[in-house]
């Protein structure tokens, strides 16, 4: 440890450059991981709530709607079906437009359609049920979350791609800077390395101090990045709690284990810190191995 710190102190500029690049990379990686997990959690939530809303024509009778409901139940693909009458729809509308009396005055229960809110057992039943409903008498419009899920899927896919490209850029940049720094230090120790080789040192023995130094820097940078990340999250937590009020608990599945990503919790933070630290160690190891490889 003493040797590592002495070596780092002897090359302050290279050490600072490597540390700052690594710190920046790991902090951004942590932020990106949290963002991606949050979006993935949101997507999972939407996907687990397969819902169709079918609006009936104004003239459709209650009995007609009940008959459709029975047919739907008979398919065995529905979890829950809720009938919303014209009156209930009007009450919902009233609540929704309570701050705008003009809008309310223009509306009466007669012009609002009755509807069925259907929770499917699985998202894959949504198109089947939608097609079934379109053929039923009195049906005016069928709305389901296919578009929302599809849009969210597209968004997640694009964000994931962008993050992967950004990750790759950060990874390559960090490895190059770390490898350059280690190469410089290796070059400074060229004569020592030559002597060690003459004495019969193995490649691992020669590499060890450079790898140890790099790993130390990686660990230190990841600790700093994790502390910064924790400070950022704790500062934003109260704002996010208000901003995202009403959002249910979001979870993602990691290796068959469920991990809650919202609201922020200790387990999610520890997972993020673990991933950031592993990423830091990976960068340090690859960079130091690549740099020392040139002289061995």
């Amino acid at each position: 440890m003493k040797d590592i710190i002495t070596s780092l102190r002897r090359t302050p500029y290279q050490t600072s450059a490597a540390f700052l690049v690594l710190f920046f990379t790991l902090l951004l990686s942590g932020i990106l991981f949290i963002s991606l997990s949050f979006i993935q959690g949101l997507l999972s939530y939407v996907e687990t709530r397969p819902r169709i809303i079918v609006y009936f024509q104004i003239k459709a009778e209650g009995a007609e709607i009940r008959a459709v409901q029975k047919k739907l139940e008979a398919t065995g693909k529905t979890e829950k079906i809720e009938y919303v009458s014209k009156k209930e729809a009007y009450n919902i509308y009233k609540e929704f437009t309570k701050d705008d009396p003009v809008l309310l005055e223009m509306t009466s229960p007669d012009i609002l359609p009755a509807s069925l809110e259907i929770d499917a057992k699985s998202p894959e039943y949504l198109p089947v049920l939608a097609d079934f409903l379109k053929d039923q008498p009195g049906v005016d419009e069928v709305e389901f979350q296919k578009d929302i899920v599809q849009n969210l899927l597209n968004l997640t896919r694009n964000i994931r791609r962008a993050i992967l490209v950004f990750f790759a850029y950060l990874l390559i940049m960090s490895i190059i800077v770390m490898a350059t720094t280690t190469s410089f230090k290796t070059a400074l120790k060229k004569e020592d390395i030559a002597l060690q080789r003459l004495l019969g040192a193995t490649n691992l023995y020669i590499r060890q101090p450079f790898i140890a130094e790099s790993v130390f820097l990686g660990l230190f940078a990841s600790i700093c990045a994790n502390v910064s990340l924790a400070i950022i999250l704790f500062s934003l937590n109260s704002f996010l709690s208000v901003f995202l009020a009403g959002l249910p608990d979001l979870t993602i599945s990691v290796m068959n284990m469920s991990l809650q990503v919202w609201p922020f919790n200790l387990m999610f933070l520890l997972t993020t810190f673990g991933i950031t630290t592993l990423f830091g160690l990976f960068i340090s190891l690859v960079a130091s191995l690549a740099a020392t490889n040139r002289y061995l």
Partner: protein
Amino acid sequence: MISFQNVTVKYPYGNLALNDATFEIADNEFIYLVGPSGAGKTTILRLLLREIMPASGRVIVDNEEISNPKYHDLTTLRQKIGIVFQDFRVLHDKNVYENVALSMRVKGYAASEIKNQVVEALELTGISEKIFMFPAQLSAGELQRVAIARAVVGDRSIILADEPTGNLDPKTTWDVMKIFKKFEKNKTIIFATHNTDIVNSMKRRVIVVKNGAVVKDQRKGGYEL
């Protein structure tokens, strides 16, 4: 046992650094390798360290043909050999103890064993009182003692000394030679030099190299070119 069998080494432009050299060195033998500068002394030492490869012929160390291109146990070979250079080649950011201990650390010795052997070697080479000093604080003679201590610790059976007294004054040269004498009973020592006085006064086997060829090989010989 070291054996050179018709060994020829060529420089990149075709000149011969060593020409058909053949000789054998028994275990625990002390030999002087003498000859003018550029005669091929260092080439012989470099062949033994497998820093260079011969163009033809065989170099055998402890029954292993190290000149064979398929020989891959370089680490084991070098861990048998201690080296002493004219320019000492000590690590300037390490103190005396650490410099000597390096020779054992690369072989994976335990810390307690390193301590015992290093302290003993430093006592034998007469530099134990400067154990925690750094190279910049030592004289040339002291640096060479450190280098010799480094070469003898860690059960290294062969010592290659390449002009080890070249940078030393006559008195220090004799002090260093006395140290080599202490270790000659249980080490094979190949001592490359062109110091006539040493060779003539401490009679040992002499191999004379000239223009890349072994021109003389005498038991208890003197320095004659």
